[in-house]
């Protein structure tokens, strides 16, 4: 009984103490939004590539294949082999047969969104346990990478 009373008493007093001090306190209206301030970077993730935006044509664009290979050597090769062997991420052999171009584009340029929304991407993260990094690849560059992937998958 005594303990209970003491608890009630304490609660009541703390409440009063809190109320008595919070009066007149105004929140600072000019607080900066984290996201707004970090949108300055030349990092190119954020825009979702929509279904139908990417069109394939044959024969392959050989300039794009070369450009895509150069990007691969600098920014992708560290984790992806051109065979079906998994290194850090899955090997690229057959990727253009397994995935839609839209899926690949978003995975390259918009990986945060994919890991948040896309079930297939989430499955891959469970397997690989390393979030695919944003390698600062533009939409145009990513398109070239896909052309290189097509070449790797035997298209001409």
């Amino acid at each position, binding site marked *: 009984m005594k303990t209970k009373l003491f608890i009630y008493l304490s609660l*009541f007093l703390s409440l*009063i103490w809190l109320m008595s001090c919070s009066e007149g306190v105004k929140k600072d209206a*000019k607080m*900066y*939004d984290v996201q707004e301030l970090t949108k300055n*970077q030349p990092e190119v993730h954020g825009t979702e590539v929509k279904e139908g935006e990417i069109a394939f044509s044959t024969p392959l664009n050989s300039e794009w294949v070369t450009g895509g290979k150069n990007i691969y050597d*600098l920014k992708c090769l*560290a984790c992806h082999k051109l065979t079906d062997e998994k290194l*850090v991420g899955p090997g690229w052999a057959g990727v253009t047969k397994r995935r839609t171009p839209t899926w690949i584009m978003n995975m390259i340029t918009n990986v945060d969104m994919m890991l948040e929304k896309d079930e297939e991407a989430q499955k891959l993260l469970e397997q690989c*346990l390393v979030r695919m990094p944003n390698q600062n690849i533009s939409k145009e560059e990513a398109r070239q990478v896909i052309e290189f992937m097509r070449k790797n998958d035997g298209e001409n």
Partner: protein
Amino acid sequence: MNLRMLKYLPILLGLFSFVIWTNSCKPKGIQTAVSGDAAVKAYVPPGKYDEFYNFVSGGFSGQMSVYGLPSGRLFRVIPVFSVDPEKGYGYSEETKPMLNTSHGFVPWDDLHHPALSVTDGIHDGRWAFGNANNTPRIARLDLKTFRTAEIIEIPNSGGNHSSPFVTENTEYIVAGTRFSVPMGDKQDVAISSYKENFRGTVSFISVDKNDGAMKIAFQILLPGVNFDLARAGKGKSHGWFFFSCYNSERANTLLEVNASQKDKDFIMAVNWKKAEEYLSQGKGMKKAVKYAHNTYSEQTHSATSKIETEVIVLDPKDCPDMVYFMPCPKSPHGCDTDPTGEYIVGSGKLAAMIPVFSFTKIQEAIAAKNFDGDYEGIPVLKYEAVLHGEVKKPGLGPLHTEFDDKGNAYTSFFVSSEIVKWRVSDLQVLDRVPTYYSIGHLCVPGGPTKKPWGKYVIAYNKITKDRYLPTGPELTQSAQLYSIDGEKMKLLLDFPTIGEPHYAEAIPAELISKNSLKVYKIEENKNPYVTMGEKNARVERKGNEVHIYMTSIRSHFVPDNIEGVKLGDAVYFHVTNLEQDWDVPHGFAVKGANNAELLIMPGETQTLLWKPDRIGVFPMYCTDFCSALHQEMQGYIRVSPAGANVPITFSTGKKVEAAAPPATK
């Protein structure tokens, strides 16, 4: 408590609540002199940004620290004049030249005053400058990268305290000698010949308005007084620079007593536009000197150090109307121009009042030659003729003054441990608050500029005594944040600082955050030792140098197995971070290295020199947690005896095909 007492409970509660209500919001003596809403005013919710960046001198740590205001949270310690093993600064081959001086590699200094660049007298968020007091230097920090971009040594100087302080468009920063020394050919002299042989200088260092490159434009040769602080004129006084000086007695021993003899020392006024005229007329003398000029390139990610050998010196003897002295009571420290540029506030460390000088009156006194004799050939203006007025009985030991956006000044008082707010126009004291304890400099955001941002004043204290949990004989350094929104200053927050916080500037966050660099583009990496992709990773021997071109990405090195290094080799690890993702640096460390780790930003290349001292196999690993498999980010390097015939081999992820050749014949 029995039941009978229960009926009194409501009355008891009522009484209690009243007592608590009346007490809880009131100051309770100096330990809790904080108003009820202080915590909320200094609180920045998780995930929210602070309103201001606060660039704080690291004092004898040699670095500059960056805090958020109003939260007091520490964001970064930027290595400037001292080595920083955490960041590899001063240890990597790329950064070692930054700390080169005419004395060779100097791994430490004492950074006193940050100064932020301005355009038209208003913060522009481009650069921060800082001075090295011990081995005289000035550094320029790039606020895109929060890194030291350039360091220039100051010749003809025994100690650089009166520095850096910017002019209205960052045309110049200055360096005034705290310690006078013998100059020129006659260096080996008796210390007691101070008055005859010791001289001071102030240097004007020009800053390129496009890339910030610093250059010593000219020096002015001056009597051997000690220059303390300085401020540029602005607005109507643009083109002038004001320096406080003490030891006009020119004592060379027990300055504590001997430099406090005279009732008045000086504030020196320099007409630098006039100096520029004399310079173009060829009045300057070329002097042979030796000083280092170090620049860090964002393209090559490396520093170069160049030794310069000449400086141009102007002597007031040959250049009349360029320098004047104004008497200022009792060893002045602060020397601060108000936002309009009309008023110059002197703060005598031992004074009990604050003299405020008028720029208009200074010009009138100069025109009328209203002099009070001269000091070592330099005209001394009459005190009364240049005085706007004195702030009477403000406190004891005024040190430094900053200004808000409403025409008020805030002066720190070391001896009486307080901040005093007064009105510049009529010199009336408006308010005072205690500081804990012994405040040195203070800072109002934008306080030294034409456009103060106001809102807060921050006290940088010399002593903290009982304010924090004890940590042995040395206690934390500290700052205190006060709100200056209302008529009364209100203490909001104590926060610890690194090193000794001499001076600080605060700037609205958006002026800097919007330009902050996130990654170095790997395509633009011009480091001669870059590895452009894992395909180019390799190991090359050049005589007894072994160059390892290594890459790092989450979470492996290429190569991570290296053999063929021999005892006596100098091994250079050139590590390129292939990541292009913000906030993903990789670290690199190898067992037994006599220097430090590397911390490599995304897209950057940094080099660690390792001289193995024994044979064996040595692990190396990534020190900065990078992914779930960070712990696996490791490798081995084998060191064989000097005469061994183990060939250079390197790999990552390959199965060993054949047994390695025997280590020795």
